[in-house]
């Protein structure tokens, strides 16, 4: 197979085409689709709403949207997906967060008023500095970055989201994993009083996810605390969530209360729910279908036609090496 490796310094068409030009082509495409779809008004409108970076180079949700801007964010254009952002409106109203209900619009409704202060995170297992830390203390002094990542849901839709957060590696270095640690396990808050979706056992609560230690230490792996330059809204996993852009969205566990360094591959929620459908790795892979649907294409929110899904969601250069020699059909 011929693989063309794009170096970080290589320019793409998007870099070299004036923005006005591709914007007009996009709206032309969307316009054509609109006539065909009947629903196209919506598609074109949401595409128009895609927001460019605001002052200081940090993405802006648009007038009147979102909370107060977070201070001191360093943009990382070198890691940014060169595609238009998915509008704030879509990012914050179309969510899979079963702790707040299984409908896409449930979390935005049911998470209103979810209290994230105070918030503690327990770090345990094979670390030199275990403990239950206040979130602010745990992250204190680690520089926040803006990372514009593609997000590919296992269901076949995708978004481009300007996250704010810190590399997970920075936090792990702070708590000092011992030589025995091979995996990192993450756990979401389990509190049915505050998370009404947990009243029904759709999944085996608390939601648990995991990464191999080298995946966790990869510079792309992010612990997000914000989106669009603002604090995370609760429906997006406030106050602390994982973002692993080359894996399906369900790996990016939300509202984290426990991070454990462990020796064995931890059990993860969806893999326990349907082991033949969801694996531990869950790398985005257009060649390995979900048993019930194809993963070859995806619908980018705001677009009409499905687009090709990229190997490792377009992050192959940075992460393919982690899986050298592994049969990705077996380790799905």
């Amino acid at each position, binding site marked *: 197979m011929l693989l063309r490796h794009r170096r970080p310094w290589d320019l793409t068409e998007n870099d070299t085409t004036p923005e006005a030009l591709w914007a007009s082509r996009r709206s032309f495409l969307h316009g054509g689709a609109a006539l*065909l*779809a009947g*629903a196209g*008004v*919506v*598609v074109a*409108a*949401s595409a128009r709403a895609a927001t460019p970076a605001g002052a200081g180079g940090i993405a802006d949700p648009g007038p009147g949207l979102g909370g107060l801007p977070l201070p001191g964010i360093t943009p990382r254009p070198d890691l940014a997906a060169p595609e238009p952002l998915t509008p704030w*409106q*879509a990012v914050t*109203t*179309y969510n899979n967060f*079963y702790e707040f209900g*299984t409908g*896409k*619009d449930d979390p*935005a409704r049911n998470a209103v008023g979810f209290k994230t202060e105070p918030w503690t995170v327990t770090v345990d297992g094979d670390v030199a500095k275990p403990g239950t830390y206040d979130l602010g203390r745990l992250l204190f002094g680690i520089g926040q970055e803006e990372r514009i990542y593609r997000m590919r849901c296992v*269901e076949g*839709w995708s978004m481009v989201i300007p996250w704010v957060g810190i590399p997970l590696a920075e936090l792990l270095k702070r708590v000092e994993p011992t030589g025995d640690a091979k995996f990192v396990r993450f756990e979401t808050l389990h509190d049915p009083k505050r998370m009404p979706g947990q009243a*029904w056992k*759709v*999944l085996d609560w608390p939601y648990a996810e995991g990464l191999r230690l080298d995946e966790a230490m990869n510079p792309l792996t992010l612990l997000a605390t914000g989106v669009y330059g603002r604090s995370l809204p609760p429906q997006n996993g406030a106050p602390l969530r994982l973002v692993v852009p080359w894996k399906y969205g369900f790996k990016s566990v939300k509202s984290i209360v426990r991070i454990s360094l462990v020796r064995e591959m931890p059990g993860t929620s969806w893999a326990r*729910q*349907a082991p033949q459908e969801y694996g531990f790795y869950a790398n985005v892979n257009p060649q390995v279908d979900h048993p*019930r*649907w*194809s993963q070859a294409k995806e*619908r980018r*929110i705001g677009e*009409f*036609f*499905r687009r090709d899904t990229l190997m490792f969601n377009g992050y192959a250069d940075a992460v393919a090496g982690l899986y050298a020699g592994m049969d990705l059909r077996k380790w799905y």
Partner: protein
Amino acid sequence: MVLIRRAPARPLIAAGWFPRWLKPLVFLLALSPLLWFVLRLGLLRPGDPVAVNPIETAIRFSGDQALTLLLVSLAVSPLRRLTGWAGVMRLRRMLGLFAFFYAAVHLLIYAGVDQFFDWAVIWADVLKRCYITVGMVAVVILLALAVTSPKGMVRRLGGRWWKRLHALVYLAAPLGVLHYAMMVKADLRTPLLYAGILAVLLLLRLPVPLRR
């Protein structure tokens, strides 16, 4: 379990009750979810989740409506049985046609908008994805029933064959519910609700004597 011990001495609703406004009203009620959905798409209220992934939402919505209307049309004869209201039978064909209509919309959005008439992918889906196979069989049955729904067809097929053919609705409805149950990721509550209602509607058809 005896579901119905005896027919009501006096029908709850007069057997012949069928005011002129009833059929147009039921027609509007059956159509209103579609009108409501189109209105939501057209109004573009900011923050309406319909606007975020309209194609996916439309597929789910039309599938839900197809199942609902199918269950409603299957409720017609038990309703007559329980209440003695024979006039309700005059609504049955229209309700069944609405079920087919929503199922057809469901299929057309999937094939025409979601997959954009990519026949190779669609055919592969039908063969490979079990829930799509099951759904497709249900739609084909509903199509056959819709085509043979005019009164003239009863004559042409002969009453007995027509009845046999239309008994296939007892296959289409469970297949439709199964199709839904097979495609959800984890939350089976809604498909189970449909299955429960369907089970009750089928149980009500058991030949329990109505009169002593």
